[in-house]
Protein backbone atom coordinates (compact mmCIF):
# COMPACT_ATOMS: atom_id res chain seq x y z
CA UNK A 1 0.00 0.00 0.00
CA UNK A 2 1.31 3.42 -0.91
CA UNK A 3 1.12 6.01 1.87
CA UNK A 4 0.83 8.90 -0.53
CA UNK A 5 -2.08 7.31 -2.23
CA UNK A 6 -3.74 6.60 1.08
CA UNK A 7 -3.09 10.20 2.07
CA UNK A 8 -4.90 11.45 -1.01
CA UNK A 9 -7.78 9.17 -0.16
CA UNK A 10 -7.95 10.78 3.30
CA UNK A 11 -7.91 14.22 1.69
CA UNK A 12 -10.78 13.22 -0.57
CA UNK A 13 -12.69 12.03 2.52
CA UNK A 14 -11.90 15.37 4.19
CA UNK A 15 -10.23 13.61 7.13
CA UNK A 16 -7.15 15.77 6.59
CA UNK A 17 -6.31 18.64 4.28
CA UNK A 18 -3.46 18.94 1.79
CA UNK A 19 -1.23 20.91 4.17
CA UNK A 20 -1.52 18.35 6.94
CA UNK A 21 -0.78 15.58 4.46
CA UNK A 22 2.34 17.38 3.29
CA UNK A 23 3.53 17.86 6.87
CA UNK A 24 2.87 14.24 7.78
CA UNK A 25 4.68 12.94 4.74
CA UNK A 26 7.66 15.16 5.46
CA UNK A 27 7.77 13.84 9.02
CA UNK A 28 7.47 10.29 7.75
CA UNK A 29 10.42 10.79 5.41
CA UNK A 30 12.43 12.34 8.24
CA UNK A 31 11.68 9.53 10.71
CA UNK A 32 11.90 6.47 8.51
CA UNK A 33 15.41 5.18 8.33
CA UNK A 34 17.15 4.33 5.11
CA UNK A 35 18.80 0.95 4.68
CA UNK A 36 22.25 2.48 5.04
CA UNK A 37 21.33 4.06 8.36
CA UNK A 38 19.92 0.77 9.65
CA UNK A 39 23.09 -1.05 8.56
CA UNK A 40 25.22 1.41 10.55
CA UNK A 41 22.91 1.10 13.55
CA UNK A 42 23.19 -2.70 13.48
CA UNK A 43 26.97 -2.52 13.09
CA UNK A 44 26.87 -4.23 9.68
CA UNK A 45 28.44 -1.31 7.82
CA UNK A 46 30.62 1.70 8.63
CA UNK A 47 29.53 5.20 7.54
CA UNK A 48 32.37 5.06 5.01
CA UNK A 49 30.97 1.83 3.54
CA UNK A 50 27.54 3.41 3.21
CA UNK A 51 28.98 6.48 1.52
CA UNK A 52 30.90 4.28 -0.90
CA UNK A 53 27.76 2.31 -1.82
CA UNK A 54 25.74 5.51 -2.33
CA UNK A 55 28.41 6.82 -4.66
CA UNK A 56 28.26 3.63 -6.72
CA UNK A 57 24.46 3.84 -6.69
CA UNK A 58 24.63 7.25 -8.30
CA UNK A 59 26.36 5.72 -11.30
CA UNK A 60 24.46 2.49 -11.78
CA UNK A 61 21.07 2.77 -10.01
CA UNK A 62 21.13 -0.70 -8.49
CA UNK A 63 19.59 -1.42 -5.08
CA UNK A 64 21.75 -0.59 -2.06
CA UNK A 65 21.82 -4.17 -0.81
CA UNK A 66 22.72 -5.59 -4.20
CA UNK A 67 25.79 -3.36 -4.40
CA UNK A 68 26.75 -4.08 -0.78
CA UNK A 69 26.54 -7.81 -1.43
CA UNK A 70 28.59 -7.56 -4.59
CA UNK A 71 31.31 -5.70 -2.65
CA UNK A 72 31.19 -8.41 0.06
CA UNK A 73 30.12 -5.81 2.60
CA UNK A 74 26.85 -7.53 3.49
CA UNK A 75 25.87 -11.20 3.59
CA UNK A 76 22.47 -12.40 2.38
CA UNK A 77 21.53 -13.13 5.99
CA UNK A 78 22.32 -9.55 7.00
CA UNK A 79 20.35 -8.24 4.01
CA UNK A 80 17.35 -10.35 5.01
CA UNK A 81 17.56 -9.00 8.55
CA UNK A 82 17.86 -5.38 7.45
CA UNK A 83 14.97 -5.60 4.99
CA UNK A 84 12.80 -7.18 7.65
CA UNK A 85 13.72 -4.52 10.21
CA UNK A 86 13.08 -1.75 7.72
CA UNK A 87 9.63 -3.17 7.07
CA UNK A 88 8.90 -3.38 10.79
CA UNK A 89 10.39 -0.09 11.91
CA UNK A 90 9.27 2.22 9.15
CA UNK A 91 6.28 4.18 10.27
CA UNK A 92 3.18 4.34 8.06
CA UNK A 93 0.94 7.30 7.47
CA UNK A 94 -1.89 5.70 9.43
CA UNK A 95 0.35 5.30 12.45
CA UNK A 96 1.36 8.95 12.26
CA UNK A 97 -2.30 9.97 12.14
CA UNK A 98 -2.95 8.03 15.33
CA UNK A 99 0.20 9.32 16.99
CA UNK A 100 -0.80 12.91 16.20
CA UNK A 101 -4.31 12.17 17.46
CA UNK A 102 -5.79 13.21 14.11
CA UNK A 103 -7.80 10.03 14.04
CA UNK A 104 -8.23 7.21 16.52
CA UNK A 105 -7.12 3.64 16.03
CA UNK A 106 -10.78 2.61 15.77
CA UNK A 107 -11.35 5.12 12.96
CA UNK A 108 -8.28 4.06 11.00
CA UNK A 109 -9.20 0.42 10.48
CA UNK A 110 -12.46 0.96 8.50
CA UNK A 111 -10.78 3.72 6.47
CA UNK A 112 -8.00 1.34 5.52
CA UNK A 113 -10.48 -1.35 4.59
CA UNK A 114 -12.46 1.10 2.45
CA UNK A 115 -9.32 2.30 0.76
CA UNK A 116 -8.15 -1.26 0.06
CA UNK A 117 -11.52 -2.09 -1.49
CA UNK A 118 -11.25 0.91 -3.79
CA UNK A 119 -7.72 -0.07 -4.74
CA UNK A 120 -8.77 -3.65 -5.40
CA UNK A 121 -11.48 -2.42 -7.75
CA UNK A 122 -9.04 -0.12 -9.45
CA UNK A 123 -6.54 -2.94 -9.93
CA UNK A 124 -9.31 -5.17 -11.24
CA UNK A 125 -10.22 -2.60 -13.87
CA UNK A 126 -6.58 -2.13 -14.74
CA UNK A 127 -6.00 -5.85 -15.15
CA UNK A 128 -9.07 -6.15 -17.32
CA UNK A 129 -7.71 -3.39 -19.42
CA UNK A 130 -4.27 -4.91 -19.68
CA UNK A 131 -5.67 -8.23 -20.77
CA UNK A 132 -7.90 -6.78 -23.45
CA UNK A 133 -6.58 -5.98 -26.89
CA UNK A 134 -9.34 -3.55 -27.82
CA UNK A 135 -9.48 -0.85 -25.21
CA UNK A 136 -12.71 1.04 -24.88
CA UNK A 137 -12.83 2.35 -21.37
CA UNK A 138 -10.24 5.04 -21.62
CA UNK A 139 -11.87 6.88 -18.78
CA UNK A 140 -10.78 4.15 -16.40
CA UNK A 141 -7.24 4.65 -17.58
CA UNK A 142 -7.49 8.37 -17.16
CA UNK A 143 -8.58 7.76 -13.60
CA UNK A 144 -5.58 5.53 -12.96
CA UNK A 145 -3.22 8.00 -14.54
CA UNK A 146 -4.74 10.85 -12.60
CA UNK A 147 -3.99 8.93 -9.42
CA UNK A 148 -0.43 8.31 -10.48
CA UNK A 149 -0.04 12.05 -10.77
CA UNK A 150 -1.52 12.44 -7.32
CA UNK A 151 1.15 10.10 -6.09
CA UNK A 152 4.08 12.12 -7.35
CA UNK A 153 2.81 15.31 -5.83
CA UNK A 154 4.50 14.12 -2.63
CA UNK A 155 7.12 11.86 -4.11
CA UNK A 156 10.71 12.17 -3.05
CA UNK A 157 12.55 12.99 -6.19
CA UNK A 158 15.05 10.40 -7.17
CA UNK A 159 17.56 10.63 -9.98
CA UNK A 160 16.97 8.38 -12.93
CA UNK A 161 19.68 6.48 -14.64
CA UNK A 162 20.20 4.66 -17.85
CA UNK A 163 18.23 1.47 -17.86
CA UNK A 164 20.00 -1.47 -19.42
CA UNK A 165 16.83 -2.76 -21.05
CA UNK A 166 16.48 0.29 -23.25
CA UNK A 167 19.36 -0.89 -25.38
CA UNK A 168 17.68 -4.14 -26.32
CA UNK A 169 14.08 -3.07 -26.76
CA UNK A 170 12.43 -2.91 -30.14
CA UNK A 171 9.12 -1.50 -28.99
CA UNK A 172 7.86 1.79 -30.26
CA UNK A 173 6.73 4.33 -27.69
CA UNK A 174 3.17 5.53 -27.98
CA UNK A 175 3.73 8.51 -25.76
CA UNK A 176 6.80 10.19 -24.39
CA UNK A 177 6.59 12.02 -21.09
CA UNK A 178 9.19 14.10 -19.36
CA UNK A 179 8.60 15.07 -15.79
CA UNK A 180 11.20 17.00 -13.94
CA UNK A 181 11.85 19.69 -11.41
CA UNK A 182 15.00 21.63 -10.71
CA UNK A 183 16.76 18.42 -9.85
CA UNK A 184 15.53 15.14 -11.27
CA UNK A 185 12.44 13.07 -11.03
CA UNK A 186 10.80 9.70 -10.99
CA UNK A 187 7.43 8.82 -12.32
CA UNK A 188 5.55 5.59 -12.98
CA UNK A 189 3.13 5.60 -15.83
CA UNK A 190 2.48 2.64 -18.02
CA UNK A 191 -0.42 2.82 -20.38
CA UNK A 192 -1.64 4.92 -23.22
CA UNK A 193 -3.67 5.03 -26.36
CA UNK A 194 -3.87 7.94 -28.70
CA UNK A 195 -7.37 9.31 -28.50
CA UNK A 196 -9.23 12.57 -28.25
CA UNK A 197 -9.42 12.11 -24.51
CA UNK A 198 -5.66 12.38 -24.40
CA UNK A 199 -6.03 16.12 -24.36
CA UNK A 200 -8.12 15.80 -21.20
CA UNK A 201 -5.41 13.75 -19.65
CA UNK A 202 -2.80 16.34 -20.51
CA UNK A 203 -4.88 19.05 -18.94
CA UNK A 204 -5.34 16.99 -15.79
CA UNK A 205 -1.66 16.22 -15.48
CA UNK A 206 -0.58 19.81 -16.02
CA UNK A 207 -3.11 20.92 -13.49
CA UNK A 208 -1.86 18.51 -10.85
CA UNK A 209 1.76 19.25 -11.39
CA UNK A 210 1.64 23.00 -11.77
CA UNK A 211 1.43 23.76 -8.06
CA UNK A 212 4.26 21.48 -7.09
CA UNK A 213 7.19 23.09 -8.79
CA UNK A 214 7.28 20.09 -11.03
CA UNK A 215 7.12 20.49 -14.74
CA UNK A 216 5.57 18.07 -17.10
CA UNK A 217 6.20 17.98 -20.79
CA UNK A 218 4.19 15.58 -22.86
CA UNK A 219 4.97 14.81 -26.42
CA UNK A 220 2.76 12.71 -28.64
CA UNK A 221 4.26 10.14 -30.85
CA UNK A 222 2.03 9.50 -33.78
CA UNK A 223 2.77 5.87 -34.35
CA UNK A 224 0.51 3.84 -32.16
CA UNK A 225 1.30 0.16 -32.25
CA UNK A 226 -0.85 -1.39 -29.57
CA UNK A 227 -0.22 -1.53 -25.89
CA UNK A 228 2.16 -3.64 -24.01
CA UNK A 229 2.69 -3.42 -20.28
CA UNK A 230 6.23 -4.00 -19.20
CA UNK A 231 8.64 -2.57 -16.72
CA UNK A 232 9.02 1.14 -16.95
CA UNK A 233 11.90 1.92 -19.17
CA UNK A 234 13.98 4.91 -18.33
CA UNK A 235 16.86 6.69 -20.00
CA UNK A 236 18.57 10.04 -20.12
CA UNK A 237 17.69 12.24 -22.99
CA UNK A 238 20.53 13.94 -24.79
CA UNK A 239 19.66 17.21 -23.09
CA UNK A 240 20.27 15.65 -19.69
CA UNK A 241 16.63 15.76 -18.70
CA UNK A 242 15.38 12.39 -17.55
CA UNK A 243 12.88 10.91 -19.91
CA UNK A 244 10.54 8.09 -19.20
CA UNK A 245 9.18 5.99 -21.99
CA UNK A 246 6.05 3.97 -21.61
CA UNK A 247 5.29 1.04 -23.82
Amino acid sequence: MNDRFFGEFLVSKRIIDENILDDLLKEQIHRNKKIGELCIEKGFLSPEDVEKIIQIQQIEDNPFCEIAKRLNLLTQKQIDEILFLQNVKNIHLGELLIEKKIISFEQLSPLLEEYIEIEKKRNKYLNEYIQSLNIKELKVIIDVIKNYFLRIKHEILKPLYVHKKIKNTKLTPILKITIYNEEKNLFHLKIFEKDDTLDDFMKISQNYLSNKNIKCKIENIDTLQGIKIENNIVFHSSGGIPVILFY
Partner: protein
Amino acid sequence: MIEPNKKNNNNNLPNIYGVFSIKKEGIVGAGHTKKKSAHQLLFFAEEKDDGSICIQPINKNFVPSGPKSFISKEEFLQNFIPEPDIYINKVYPSMRHLQKTIARAERHRRNKEYYSAEYEFKNALRIDEENIRATFGLGLTYLDRGEKDKAKLVFKRLYNLNAAFEREHKHLFNEFGIKMRKNKMYKEALKFYLKAYSLEKWDEHLFFNIARVLFELKKYKPALKFINKALALNPNFMEAIKLKNVIEKCLQNEKSVARIPQ
Protein backbone atom coordinates in the same frame (compact mmCIF):
# COMPACT_ATOMS: atom_id res chain seq x y z
CA MET B 1 12.64 -12.04 41.73
CA ILE B 2 10.99 -15.13 43.06
CA GLU B 3 7.87 -16.43 41.47
CA PRO B 4 5.81 -17.43 44.56
CA ASN B 5 3.93 -20.33 43.06
CA LYS B 6 6.98 -21.88 41.52
CA LYS B 7 8.87 -24.17 43.86
CA ASN B 8 11.76 -26.43 43.22
CA ASN B 9 10.57 -29.92 44.08
CA ASN B 10 13.99 -31.30 44.99
CA ASN B 11 15.20 -29.02 47.71
CA ASN B 12 12.14 -26.88 48.37
CA LEU B 13 14.00 -23.72 47.40
CA PRO B 14 12.17 -21.16 45.32
CA ASN B 15 13.06 -21.05 41.64
CA ILE B 16 15.19 -18.27 40.26
CA TYR B 17 13.09 -15.94 38.16
CA GLY B 18 13.69 -12.29 37.35
CA VAL B 19 16.27 -9.74 36.32
CA PHE B 20 19.94 -10.12 37.15
CA SER B 21 23.02 -8.20 36.17
CA ILE B 22 26.60 -9.05 35.44
CA LYS B 23 29.54 -6.66 35.25
CA LYS B 24 31.74 -6.84 32.19
CA GLU B 25 35.09 -5.11 31.94
CA GLY B 26 36.56 -3.96 28.70
CA ILE B 27 39.16 -1.62 27.28
CA VAL B 28 38.01 1.56 25.60
CA GLY B 29 40.05 4.09 23.64
CA ALA B 30 43.62 3.77 22.41
CA GLY B 31 47.01 5.27 23.23
CA HIS B 32 46.76 7.97 25.94
CA THR B 33 42.98 7.67 26.14
CA LYS B 34 43.10 3.90 26.66
CA LYS B 35 41.36 2.91 29.89
CA LYS B 36 39.46 0.13 31.58
CA SER B 37 35.73 0.44 31.57
CA ALA B 38 33.11 -1.61 33.40
CA HIS B 39 29.53 -1.84 32.32
CA GLN B 40 26.50 -3.63 33.55
CA LEU B 41 24.65 -6.14 31.40
CA LEU B 42 21.11 -7.10 32.28
CA PHE B 43 19.66 -10.58 31.83
CA PHE B 44 16.37 -12.23 32.45
CA ALA B 45 16.98 -15.48 34.29
CA GLU B 46 14.71 -18.42 34.89
CA GLU B 47 15.47 -21.69 36.63
CA LYS B 48 14.43 -24.76 34.67
CA ASP B 49 13.16 -28.09 35.97
CA ASP B 50 16.58 -29.69 35.51
CA GLY B 51 18.16 -27.02 37.73
CA SER B 52 19.93 -25.18 34.93
CA ILE B 53 19.40 -21.45 34.54
CA CYS B 54 18.11 -20.05 31.29
CA ILE B 55 19.39 -16.52 30.70
CA GLN B 56 18.29 -14.08 28.03
CA PRO B 57 19.62 -10.52 27.48
CA ILE B 58 17.36 -7.58 28.33
CA ASN B 59 17.15 -5.18 25.41
CA LYS B 60 17.06 -1.37 25.40
CA ASN B 61 13.26 -1.47 25.76
CA PHE B 62 13.62 -3.53 28.93
CA VAL B 63 12.24 -6.80 27.62
CA PRO B 64 14.06 -10.12 27.37
CA SER B 65 15.11 -10.49 23.75
CA GLY B 66 17.41 -12.56 21.59
CA PRO B 67 18.94 -15.98 21.95
CA LYS B 68 18.60 -17.83 25.25
CA SER B 69 21.52 -19.67 26.81
CA PHE B 70 21.81 -22.10 29.69
CA ILE B 71 24.32 -22.08 32.54
CA SER B 72 24.70 -24.05 35.74
CA LYS B 73 23.22 -22.73 38.95
CA GLU B 74 26.66 -22.52 40.55
CA GLU B 75 28.03 -20.37 37.76
CA PHE B 76 24.94 -18.23 37.86
CA LEU B 77 25.09 -17.61 41.62
CA GLN B 78 28.79 -16.76 41.41
CA ASN B 79 28.47 -14.13 38.72
CA PHE B 80 24.99 -12.63 38.65
CA ILE B 81 23.51 -10.00 40.96
CA PRO B 82 19.73 -9.70 41.50
CA GLU B 83 18.11 -6.46 40.27
CA PRO B 84 14.63 -6.46 41.84
CA ASP B 85 14.02 -2.73 41.28
CA ILE B 86 14.70 -3.00 37.57
CA TYR B 87 12.45 -6.03 37.36
CA ILE B 88 9.53 -4.43 39.17
CA ASN B 89 9.78 -0.92 37.74
CA LYS B 90 11.01 -1.51 34.22
CA VAL B 91 11.07 -5.06 32.95
CA TYR B 92 7.83 -6.42 34.33
CA PRO B 93 5.69 -3.49 33.02
CA SER B 94 7.43 -3.66 29.64
CA MET B 95 6.87 -7.40 29.38
CA ARG B 96 3.20 -6.93 30.25
CA HIS B 97 2.89 -4.17 27.66
CA LEU B 98 4.49 -6.40 25.02
CA GLN B 99 2.24 -9.35 25.85
CA LYS B 100 -0.85 -7.16 25.68
CA THR B 101 0.21 -5.72 22.33
CA ILE B 102 0.70 -9.20 20.87
CA ALA B 103 -2.62 -10.36 22.32
CA ARG B 104 -4.38 -7.38 20.69
CA ALA B 105 -2.68 -8.14 17.38
CA GLU B 106 -3.74 -11.77 17.52
CA ARG B 107 -7.30 -10.74 18.35
CA HIS B 108 -7.38 -8.43 15.32
CA ARG B 109 -6.09 -11.27 13.16
CA ARG B 110 -8.74 -13.66 14.45
CA ASN B 111 -11.34 -10.98 13.61
CA LYS B 112 -9.85 -10.70 10.10
CA GLU B 113 -8.84 -7.07 10.81
CA TYR B 114 -5.56 -7.62 9.05
CA TYR B 115 -4.32 -4.05 8.82
CA SER B 116 -4.92 -3.48 12.50
CA ALA B 117 -3.19 -6.78 13.19
CA GLU B 118 -0.16 -5.71 11.15
CA TYR B 119 -0.05 -2.42 13.05
CA GLU B 120 -0.01 -4.15 16.44
CA PHE B 121 2.42 -6.90 15.45
CA LYS B 122 4.81 -4.25 14.22
CA ASN B 123 4.40 -2.33 17.47
CA ALA B 124 5.36 -5.50 19.32
CA LEU B 125 8.39 -6.03 17.08
CA ARG B 126 9.53 -2.48 17.69
CA ILE B 127 9.73 -3.36 21.37
CA ASP B 128 11.34 -6.76 20.79
CA GLU B 129 12.58 -7.22 17.25
CA GLU B 130 13.33 -10.90 17.85
CA ASN B 131 9.95 -11.79 19.29
CA ILE B 132 9.00 -15.07 17.69
CA ARG B 133 5.26 -14.90 18.33
CA ALA B 134 5.00 -11.41 16.82
CA THR B 135 7.19 -12.35 13.85
CA PHE B 136 5.03 -15.36 13.08
CA GLY B 137 1.93 -13.21 13.58
CA LEU B 138 3.15 -10.59 11.14
CA GLY B 139 4.03 -13.23 8.56
CA LEU B 140 0.66 -14.94 8.96
CA THR B 141 -1.09 -11.59 8.55
CA TYR B 142 0.71 -11.01 5.26
CA LEU B 143 -0.18 -14.53 4.13
CA ASP B 144 -3.80 -13.93 5.11
CA ARG B 145 -3.76 -10.89 2.85
CA GLY B 146 -1.97 -12.80 0.09
CA GLU B 147 0.99 -10.38 0.20
CA LYS B 148 3.68 -12.83 -0.77
CA ASP B 149 6.59 -10.40 -1.07
CA LYS B 150 6.19 -9.21 2.49
CA ALA B 151 5.54 -12.76 3.69
CA LYS B 152 8.85 -13.76 2.11
CA LEU B 153 10.65 -11.10 4.14
CA VAL B 154 9.20 -12.62 7.30
CA PHE B 155 9.92 -16.13 6.12
CA LYS B 156 13.60 -15.27 5.66
CA ARG B 157 13.68 -13.72 9.09
CA LEU B 158 12.09 -16.75 10.76
CA TYR B 159 14.31 -19.13 8.84
CA ASN B 160 17.33 -17.50 10.46
CA LEU B 161 15.89 -17.62 13.98
CA ASN B 162 16.37 -21.08 15.45
CA ALA B 163 13.98 -20.20 18.26
CA ALA B 164 11.16 -20.20 15.69
CA PHE B 165 11.54 -23.96 15.51
CA GLU B 166 11.20 -24.55 19.25
CA ARG B 167 8.37 -26.70 20.56
CA GLU B 168 6.58 -23.79 22.25
CA HIS B 169 5.92 -22.21 18.84
CA LYS B 170 4.90 -25.45 17.16
CA HIS B 171 1.33 -24.43 16.35
CA LEU B 172 2.49 -21.12 14.84
CA PHE B 173 5.19 -22.93 12.89
CA ASN B 174 2.64 -25.37 11.48
CA GLU B 175 0.14 -22.65 10.61
CA PHE B 176 2.83 -20.60 8.88
CA GLY B 177 4.00 -23.57 6.82
CA ILE B 178 0.45 -24.50 5.81
CA LYS B 179 -0.40 -20.90 4.90
CA MET B 180 2.73 -20.67 2.75
CA ARG B 181 1.68 -23.83 0.94
CA LYS B 182 -1.83 -22.47 0.41
CA ASN B 183 -0.30 -19.29 -1.01
CA LYS B 184 1.66 -21.53 -3.40
CA MET B 185 4.98 -20.63 -1.77
CA TYR B 186 6.02 -24.27 -2.06
CA LYS B 187 9.76 -23.80 -2.14
CA GLU B 188 9.71 -21.59 0.93
CA ALA B 189 7.40 -23.97 2.79
CA LEU B 190 9.65 -26.91 1.97
CA LYS B 191 12.78 -25.04 3.05
CA PHE B 192 11.04 -24.13 6.28
CA TYR B 193 9.98 -27.70 7.07
CA LEU B 194 13.35 -29.13 6.12
CA LYS B 195 15.08 -26.81 8.54
CA ALA B 196 12.85 -28.15 11.32
CA TYR B 197 13.74 -31.64 10.12
CA SER B 198 17.47 -30.83 10.22
CA LEU B 199 17.09 -29.51 13.76
CA GLU B 200 15.40 -32.80 14.71
CA LYS B 201 12.18 -31.02 15.61
CA TRP B 202 10.12 -33.59 13.83
CA ASP B 203 6.98 -35.62 14.34
CA GLU B 204 4.44 -37.29 12.05
CA HIS B 205 2.79 -33.94 11.23
CA LEU B 206 6.08 -32.47 10.03
CA PHE B 207 6.66 -35.52 7.81
CA PHE B 208 3.11 -35.21 6.51
CA ASN B 209 3.57 -31.50 5.74
CA ILE B 210 6.86 -32.16 3.93
CA ALA B 211 5.16 -34.86 1.87
CA ARG B 212 2.25 -32.52 1.11
CA VAL B 213 4.54 -29.81 -0.26
CA LEU B 214 6.61 -32.31 -2.25
CA PHE B 215 3.37 -33.61 -3.70
CA GLU B 216 2.42 -30.08 -4.80
CA LEU B 217 5.85 -29.80 -6.42
CA LYS B 218 5.06 -33.08 -8.23
CA LYS B 219 8.03 -34.76 -6.57
CA TYR B 220 6.13 -37.95 -5.89
CA LYS B 221 8.96 -40.30 -4.95
CA PRO B 222 10.36 -38.18 -2.10
CA ALA B 223 6.77 -37.35 -1.11
CA LEU B 224 6.12 -41.07 -0.72
CA LYS B 225 9.26 -41.44 1.36
CA PHE B 226 8.11 -38.77 3.81
CA ILE B 227 4.53 -39.97 3.99
CA ASN B 228 5.86 -43.40 4.88
CA LYS B 229 7.91 -41.82 7.65
CA ALA B 230 4.74 -40.15 8.98
CA LEU B 231 2.86 -43.44 8.88
CA ALA B 232 5.71 -45.28 10.57
CA LEU B 233 5.28 -42.96 13.54
CA ASN B 234 1.47 -43.05 13.45
CA PRO B 235 -0.07 -45.81 11.31
CA ASN B 236 -3.59 -44.49 12.03
CA PHE B 237 -2.88 -40.98 10.68
CA MET B 238 -5.91 -40.74 8.36
CA GLU B 239 -4.83 -37.71 6.28
CA ALA B 240 -1.47 -39.38 5.69
CA ILE B 241 -3.17 -42.61 4.53
CA LYS B 242 -5.31 -40.61 2.08
CA LEU B 243 -2.33 -38.65 0.80
CA LYS B 244 -0.32 -41.85 0.36
CA ASN B 245 -3.07 -43.28 -1.85
CA VAL B 246 -3.08 -40.15 -4.00
CA ILE B 247 0.72 -40.11 -4.28
CA GLU B 248 0.79 -43.77 -5.29
CA LYS B 249 -1.82 -43.14 -8.00
CA CYS B 250 0.25 -40.24 -9.32
CA LEU B 251 3.35 -42.43 -9.39
CA GLN B 252 1.46 -45.11 -11.33
CA ASN B 253 0.21 -42.49 -13.82
CA GLU B 254 3.75 -41.23 -14.25
CA LYS B 255 4.95 -44.74 -15.03
CA SER B 256 2.17 -45.37 -17.54
CA VAL B 257 2.87 -42.03 -19.26
CA ALA B 258 6.53 -42.93 -19.42
CA ARG B 259 5.63 -46.23 -21.15
CA ILE B 260 3.64 -44.51 -23.95
CA PRO B 261 5.87 -44.45 -27.04
CA GLN B 262 6.72 -40.93 -28.15
